[in-house]
């Protein structure tokens, strides 16, 4: 049982690592139109990108402190909410990241297409 649970843990850690970068990309892309924390999380989840609140809300603040997002408090439905949107610097970075993402995707596709060689001997 031990090896299986440790394999699961390893997979979980690697999965989180893999997702981390893509989450930033997804958040930046989704914030090309203005949203507040909860609706952003919902729209990401609706598109298959589930993200935990404990990860998303701190991430938004970090991206804002890095100058990639801007935010403002505004009243909506009789309540003040903090709306985020992509900052000009974020737009530039998003373009670069998307190009990088596409390049990685293309490379991976090539690598995965290659026939698997026997490693014995």
């Amino acid at each position, binding site marked *: 049982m031990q090896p299986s649970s440790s394999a699961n843990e390893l997979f979980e850690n690697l999965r989180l690592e893999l997702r981390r970068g893509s989450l930033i990309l997804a958040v930046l892309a989704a914030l090309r139109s203005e949203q*507040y*924390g*909860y*609706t952003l999380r919902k729209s990401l989840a609706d598109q298959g990108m589930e993200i935990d*609140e*404990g*990860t998303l*809300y*701190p991430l938004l*603040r*970090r991206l804002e402190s890095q100058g990639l997002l801007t935010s403002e408090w505004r009243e909506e439905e009789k*309540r*003040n*909410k*903090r709306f985020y949107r992509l900052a000009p610097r974020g737009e530039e970075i998003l373009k670069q990241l998307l190009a990088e993402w596409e390049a990685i995707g293309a490379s991976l596709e090539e690598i995965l297409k290659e026939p698997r060689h026997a490693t014995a001997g």
Partner: protein
Amino acid sequence: MQLLDSYVKAVKLYLPRKQREDIARELSANLLSQMEERQEELGRALTEEEEMEFLRQHGDPMLVARGYRQDRPSLNIGIELIGPELFPMYLMILGMNLTIALGLTAVFVYLFKAPVSLQPFILPFLIQIFCVTLTFVILNWIRRKYPQPWYYPPAALSPHLPIARWHSLSGLVVWSIFTLWWAAVPYFPGLLFGTWAQGLELAASWHHFYLPVLLLLLAGIAQRAANLARPEWTWLLPGVRVIINGIALAMQVPMIHGFPFVVVNPAAAGHPLFEQLAEAYSNIILWGFLSWLWIYFLIGALIYARFCVPHVRRWLALRQHGTAMAL
């Protein structure tokens, strides 16, 4: 939405000071939107249990706040002693303990007209650092070894969170051992004096507080046993502990006045070694324990009193509701 407010307040406690208000405001708005959406789905307001379940799913306030901290300070000496989740609370409790201990030592120095020097402050200062650090190192070890959410619920939410059985069980074991030791000491002085028991005995003053201390220990054990069987009796823990800590605090003055606590027994009367040992034992009890133990009873009593407040409020609300129904 009183539970939501309490939850956000609890998160706020662990947030970086500069952004505290802003983050709490945003978190509150996001959680409220989510709860309102749930209410719309159900077509009614959430019950207290549903609201609590929602907050429980959102996570331990300490861990939620940790996500917002980029500095993540911790106490580390190659191995982790106090992790980043507990570290802000460690600093807060240590600061509070040091302030109370040093402040009151200053008052005593003034009242007893002792010469102004650093000396009286050193022992309380070191003891507070040692005890608080050791406590948090143990808590951190438990967190890492047995991870589970909601180790330290905020007072307002505690009535809704059953008391963990491991918590009651570990306390039951530790305090049962100590109670047995305490109960046995008058009959087997060797448990306290070791091989010197032949020349030492407990002073008469000891017998005045022996039984009350034993009763307080038994009350603590009874509470833990009851909560082990009934974890949902969340009122029992703060209720019993506030009484225990309050009585223990009140007993400190007569206990300190009971000095000396250890005397030479008639068989060894006049023996210089036993005279010295009796004095040393009494001083260790006075300065090693009683001089600072009352700080813990005071802080314990205040914390548990705070945890009693939501139970009293709930009880009053239920009573009012019952009266209204009867009318």
